[in-house]
């Protein structure tokens, strides 16, 4: 295979691994398309979780902060969309963006005070956020319909064009994930992204260089919330049904598992992790409860034995060692 030399030098060894992985993923999607059926649903959910994880990666991966409550914003997106579409007959696409706007504002309001916390307090406060949202979605029946949840949420679409075919839904979701990855990649390798990544390893060093830590943390938190909200809305439109359980605490575990499988802090990691972690339970043909158990076990094992995520194991996404080292200098 011949590539233009500029591309091949830029790719490097790991670049080829990434290309190989991309081709594998492509083949997987072709297979899913031809095969159809239940696998389509699995991949749709993988893409939706992928969107969530790409956002989580901003806060967790790039910025190195822990939030155990991003599911709150997914719930906000999901219920926002459901209420706007079902109760008020909004266009799905408008409802999605409106929900994102609401989540964005909510994340600023909540994040501004919360992110001043550190360590266990930050962890518990974010975790509480998810629990509060869950309880509200159960209790505020006049709006959320309680445990029963919302059904009959219309599929995505603009005007007369609606995406109802399962294969097309997957295509649309894939495009959204690619767009989300594109944003993530662009931001990571920018002044903004460098500031985030600097904060993740040394807040002292970053602030000595004039980086305003609190602003950047908040920005990463808001971005993560926007992605989470979009994921929640997409779930509502694609599946057509939401309930409090969809955005419960297991969403936190599932998405963290995905992030760890794919690689925390890498651009592609969240999406790859979402696909792999979604397929794994299918391979062992487990469903429901066993699936959650499997996720929890995989996550625990990863946290103990591969704390940097699977991709670190293969060296994907790691900076290259110097070609020539010059110890004499």
């Amino acid at each position, binding site marked *: 295979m011949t590539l233009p030399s500029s591309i091949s030098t830029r790719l490097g060894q790991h670049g080829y691994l990434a290309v190989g992985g991309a081709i594998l993923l492509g083949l997987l999607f072709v297979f899913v398309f031809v095969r159809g059926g239940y696998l389509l649903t699995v991949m749709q959910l993988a893409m939706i979780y992928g969107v969530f994880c790409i956002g989580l990666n901003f806060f967790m991966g790039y910025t190195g902060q822990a939030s155990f409550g991003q599911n709150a914003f997914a719930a906000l997106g999901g219920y926002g969309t459901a209420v706007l579409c079902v109760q008020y007959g909004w266009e799905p696409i408008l409802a999605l963006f409106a929900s994102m706007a609401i989540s964005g504002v909510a994340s600023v309001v909540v994040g501004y005070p919360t992110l001043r916390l550190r360590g266990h307090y930050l962890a518990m406060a974010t975790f509480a956020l998810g629990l509060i949202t869950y309880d509200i979605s159960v209790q505020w029946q006049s709006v959320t319909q309680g445990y029963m949840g919302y059904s009959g949420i219309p599929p995505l679409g603009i005007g007369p064009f609606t995406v109802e075919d399962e294969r097309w839904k997957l295509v649309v979701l894939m495009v959204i994930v690619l767009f989300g990855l594109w*944003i993530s990649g*662009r*931001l990571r390798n*920018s*002044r*903004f*992204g*460098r*500031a985030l*990544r*600097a904060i*993740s*390893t*040394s807040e*002292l*060093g*970053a*602030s*000595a*260089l*004039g*980086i*305003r*830590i609190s602003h950047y943390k908040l*920005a990463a938190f808001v*971005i993560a919330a926007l992605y989470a909200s979009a994921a929640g809305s997409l779930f509502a439109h694609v599946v057509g049904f939401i309930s409090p359980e969809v955005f419960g605490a297991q969403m936190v575990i599932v998405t963290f598992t995905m992030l760890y499988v794919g690689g925390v*802090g890498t651009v592609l990691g969240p999406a790859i992790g979402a696909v792999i972690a979604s397929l794994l339970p299918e391979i062992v043909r487990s469903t429901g409860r066993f699936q959650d158990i499997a996720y929890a076990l995989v996550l625990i094992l990863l946290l103990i034995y591969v704390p940097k995520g699977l991709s670190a194991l293969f060296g994907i996404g*790691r*900076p*290259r*060692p*110097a*070609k*020539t*080292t*010059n*110890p004499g*200098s």
Partner: protein
Amino acid sequence: MTLLSVRGLTKRFDGLTANSEISLDVEEGSLFAVIGPNGAGKTTFFNMVSGFLPSTAGSITFAGTDITTMRQDKIAAMGLIRTFQLVQMFQNMTVAENVEVGFHLKTRGGVGAALVRPPWLRRQEEDIRVKARELLDFVGLGAQADMDAGLLPYGQQRLLEVARAMAAGPRLLLLDEPAAGLNAHETDALADVIQHINGRGITVLLIEHDVGLVTRIAHRIAVLDFGCKIAEGTPDEIKKHPDVIAAYLGTETENA
């Protein structure tokens, strides 16, 4: 002209007075050193000057502006840039990226610009890439530019931290024991770098433990002991100062 002027700066931790009524003036363009035994309060002094620690009393004026209670990122934006006694590497980034982060204050662009990448942003990125290379060459790390910063040996991490601070365009550079943990050869290289930085017109305020290094390169030296400034003067004056010899130099003459 006086660039940094400190008056009566005091810091008390619970019972301990880590800095007591310290006053000093740093002339623009000079290479000023603060020396003193371990625990004398040098780092505490730096932490207050750079806004990382609120002071108990006293005032700090930088370039004519009172920065006593200013936020650290604003102080940095005024051109007062510091390094740390314990190296603060961005371990997950390459050596070059570390320096690129250093350009944060000298560049602009947030989320929107990063997504659209307008021409000015691309020029800016290209610009800092080139300048980062220059700085790395300047401190002798050009060959390690694409390496994972966390993999650098300790001595080179110190140099990288200096290069990174230089990227922020300091008017006053605060270096906290940059030679700590370096061997003689590395210390010489570092002394060279510091003198070159000062030669570029950047004022340097240096904390150092190694008296030999300080008396060789500093224009002026202040000596701290138990949180108090016990002497200030030229290297020659300091070497002769009886209090200093008693409190500090006496134990270090073999090294000097």
